[in-house]
């Protein structure tokens, strides 16, 4: 018996969520008196995982898996779980991992809980806390099957070092043609920009910015902070920004450490998508804007005056820090 995590990597490097997942898995493993095995796909150097408590890595290197294909990857994770007799299988909440998790759960006949925040509330019965109703509530979910699949919400646990001695093993699961029923034809990534999914800080702006020509200062603020940019729904509907940037209930969820909202009113549907961000800063000219009710810090004022000043001040701060 062990705990299995799927440690997601891109271009040979582990994603931050994989390190968070390892940290989380170590803690769950301690409470169950077991060890953590990670399965990796074409990950290159895996030694980094030992820093976060992984005891063993099953390394899959296979050219057929060079691009992400859900069914094939799910098959890999299933076979790894069976080989390790894993009772708990953990995945992250990236778009890819969420795609995989329900396939893995069915394949292992396992109960599955997604959007898990925090360590199990109890291990017998096995109960976890997850978000529900677009972050307006939490739900304690009990999993009754022998094998359990969990998907951990991003930034809900944190990354903790906990060095282990790592063993690695090459793993060659069987993957067949049936795994490739959905073929990737082409991939388009927005290059040179921090993506919302990877960002620790997101700078977001709404209709209060009046037009797409005013986004220069938002991009500059984001670049000073190493942040991703985002927007409210009307902004993407109006075509000022791409749909990939729209956050909220019908857009992307954002679970960052810092969310800066400029000229966004704070409608309930927008808040639903950013509620699990840790610290929220709101800049809005209307002191009655609903966003101030959920914000940690607020500045009442004109974005066109405040943002340029903030850029200068953050720049000075960064220089002083370095």
């Amino acid at each position, binding site marked *: 018996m062990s705990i299995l995590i799927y440690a997601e990597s891109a271009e040979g490097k582990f994603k931050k969520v994989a390190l968070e997942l390892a940290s989380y898995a170590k803690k769950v493993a301690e409470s169950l008196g077991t060890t953590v095995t990670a399965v990796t796909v074409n990950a290159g150097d895996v030694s980094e995982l030992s820093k976060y408590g992984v005891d063993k890595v099953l390394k899959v290197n296979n050219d057929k898996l060079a691009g992400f294909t859900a*069914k094939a990857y799910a098959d890999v994770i299933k076979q790894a779980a069976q080989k390790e007799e894993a009772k708990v299988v953990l995945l992250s909440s990236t778009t890819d991992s969420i*795609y995989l998790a*329900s396939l893995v759960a069915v394949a292992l006949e396992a109960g599955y809980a997604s959007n898990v925040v925090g360590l199990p509330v109890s291990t017998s019965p096995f109960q976890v806390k997850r978000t529900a*109703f*677009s972050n307006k509530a939490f*739900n304690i979910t009990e999993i009754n099957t022998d094998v359990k699949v969990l998907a951990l919400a991003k930034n809900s646990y944190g990354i903790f070092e906990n060095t282990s001695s790592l063993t690695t093993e090459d793993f060659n699961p069987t993957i067949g043609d049936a795994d490739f029923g959905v073929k990737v034809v082409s991939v388009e990534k927005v290059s040179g*920009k921090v993506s919302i999914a990877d960002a*620790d800080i997101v700078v977001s702006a709404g209709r209060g910015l009046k037009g797409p020509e005013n986004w220069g200062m938002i991009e500059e603020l984001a670049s000073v902070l190493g942040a991703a940019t985002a927007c409210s729904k009307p902004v993407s509907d109006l075509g000022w920004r791409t749909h990939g940037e729209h956050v909220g209930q019908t857009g992307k969820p954002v679970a960052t450490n810092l969310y800066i909202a400029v000229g966004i009113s704070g409608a309930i549907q927008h808040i639903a998508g950013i509620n699990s961000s840790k610290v929220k800063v709101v800049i809005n000219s209307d002191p009655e804007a609903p966003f101030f*009710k959920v914000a940690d810090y607020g500045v*009442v004022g004109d974005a066109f005056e405040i943002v340029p000043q903030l850029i200068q001040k953050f720049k000075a701060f960064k220089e002083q820090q370095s």
Partner: protein
Amino acid sequence: MKILVCISHVPDTTSKINFTNGDAEFDTNGVQYVINPNDEFGLTRAIWFQEQQGATVTVVNVGGPDTESTLRKALAIGANEAIRINANPTDGFFVAKQLAEVIKNGGYDIVIAGKESLDYNGGMVPGMIAGILGYNFLNSCTGITVEGTNVTAVREIDGGKETVSSSLPIIIGGQKGIVEEKDLRIPNMRGIMTARTKVLTILEPVDAAINTKAVKFEKPAPKSAVKLISADNLDELINLLHNEAKVI
């Protein structure tokens, strides 16, 4: 082409979320229900296929009699027929099991579900259906075209998008982009009238294991009030973000 659209009946996005029975159950008091927004995008795309390429569109929901208003709305938007599986949707696997049964017996070419529903946000059902049936599956779909038995679709990925191809049958986890919001249909009077005459079949559920159960709900702890910083003292904001919140 036969299309099945899975419809989740969810509280309107502005609903107040409360719990009853010792926080064990969602309080439906005063809650307005709607078609889950992700499903509504899928339904609209299905109607587009019906009108442009010739397809029959069936909508299905797992739920009690109270969900029929939502199915009737889908019929008024243009679906040809509806199915209600008469059961309380207890968890994602249970729902997927019921839907898989309908799909197996109905021989659908395309099944469109929302990538997640806005009540439990599970994001489980479409993938589980695909897993149970062994069908091709595409999640977070933002565009789909069909030529003969070939499907070309676009999927959102972290930091971009990807184009994929597959053959029918396929299960889709859809979201905004599969159609744009401006293209969503509102039922008109004629639609509402004809919806009354369309077939709504009620099926009894098949047995399914209860893998997970919701035992209790909690609301987030009340937030402390916002700290307002004067617009002419922005250094204070930087100071607070660095020393108090420790996020920069």
